[in-house]
């Protein structure tokens, strides 16, 4: 996921994105950002809410609850005072093309 530098909340979103690097896919051993699982980040200052749109590699992934739980912990540690809402979406469906160059390098190391 790439955050537009002209975005008004660029800095805050980058903090969230960096925090999400702490959440690692247990099988592949790389973080969910480089794996391409995070689709969108919205920060609502007035309601102190961070909404995340993300997916899983497959809808039947048995780790869904664990990963979303870890996402909440990582984001709320990085942005104290904010509530995190994780919305799992299946469209567009995740595929291997979503893995970043850094992710590919980590996978093949």
């Amino acid at each position: 996921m790439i955050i537009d530098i002209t975005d008004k909340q660029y800095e805050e979103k980058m903090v969230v994105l960096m925090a999400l690097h702490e959440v690692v896919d247990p099988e592949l051993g790389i973080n969910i950002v480089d794996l391409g699982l995070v689709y969108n980040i919205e920060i609502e200052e007035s309601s102190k809410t961070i909404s995340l749109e993300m997916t899983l590699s497959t809808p039947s992934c048995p780790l869904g609850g664990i990963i979303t739980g870890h996402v909440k912990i990582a984001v709320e540690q990085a942005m104290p005072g904010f509530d995190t809402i994780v919305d799992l979406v299946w469209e567009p469906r995740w595929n291997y093309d979503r893995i970043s160059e850094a992710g590919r390098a980590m996978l093949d190391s």
Partner: protein
Amino acid sequence: MMPPDEHRPLKRTILPYYAAAAVSFVVVALLCLVSGTEFTGHYFNPKLLAITHLFILGWGTIMIFGASNQLMPVLTERKLYSELIPQYVFALMLMGIPLLVYSFWNFTLTWTIYLGGILVIAGMALHAINIFRTSKKVKDNIATEFMLSAHLWLLVTAIIGFTLLVNFRILFLSRDHLEYLKLHATIGMAGWFLQLIIGVSSKLIPMFLISGYENKKCLNIIYYCLNLGLIIFLLEGFMNNSLMGKLIPSAIIMTSMVSYGIYVRQCYKHAIKKHLDAGMKQTFIALALLSIPFVLLFINLLVKGEVSPKLVTAYGFAFFGGFISVIIMGQTFKTLPFIVWMHITKRDELPEMLPKDLYHEKWVSWQMYIYLFSYTAFLSGILLSQTKLIHIGASCMLIAASWYCVHVLLIMNKLRRK
């Protein structure tokens, strides 16, 4: 949308299977050691029947049942139909297999063997019902099709086996017992084990290698060739039992296997993760070992024009001791640490370790080196009728199996310490 945690099966539907299979593997190795001399004789003898059934049921089938309880929800994207059935299945298999193996070992054709057979068939039927109900209404999913037809062939194999047991007491089959035994063995090998492993690996190999390669056409060819070959083999075996009737389905099944080899090769070629861990290396070694039983069979047919009893023993050992055991040993360390990690990791705490930290990668490699040495020695011992080689092979197999078993139990022990 809520996270799909409901797809995660209970650990008691999976882990007891892994533990029982690991222990069975040690017992198989021990029995191979104490009855090593039997492997130089005819394959139809009580000790070999007992060892083979413990190998196939206690080690291979129990492990596959446990793994399939974890994998079916992933393959079908559905919750397991029942989480109670796997617990009944486990109890039935745990009672039935020892009765069956004990009776074969002593060749006591009394109630114990029949009760054992009935319990095992009941366990298999219940497991198959759970798999079929889980995949109900799943469409356009070739991996699931492989799973379903493999379970059908498993039931066919078990029914033929039980019919043979009945025929020991009440002679009603028209032809030689050994002819039906070949059918029982071949359908079990190709219909159950091979088909199931191909189906599951068609999904797991691209998943583990992060390979974007997809070829439904190739998978369909593999599926239809394998099943067509098996149906012809079964019908021919019961009706004509001619040499041509064996060669035609064998050629069709071989086409299927060659296509599978091409499929796996393409998956690797398109993989993002080309660096293989110990578990995946073993999977590829197992796939290479799959060719050995067929090479043996082919050479024997070419040189002698018939299959000798010694070669049947070698062929069976090469299949179960090679392909099946090596793939199970490798995949254990791809699946078990993941399953255990899933149950020890808390949602509200970032984990300190990953599944790869729950096992020793070097142990996996050393277990395999020892096992491959034991396999080579044991197989050479059978082919050369050298009991010393068989004993060396069985001793090393016992070391590798015990190490593997300890490793599996240590991983599971992490659950107690959470």
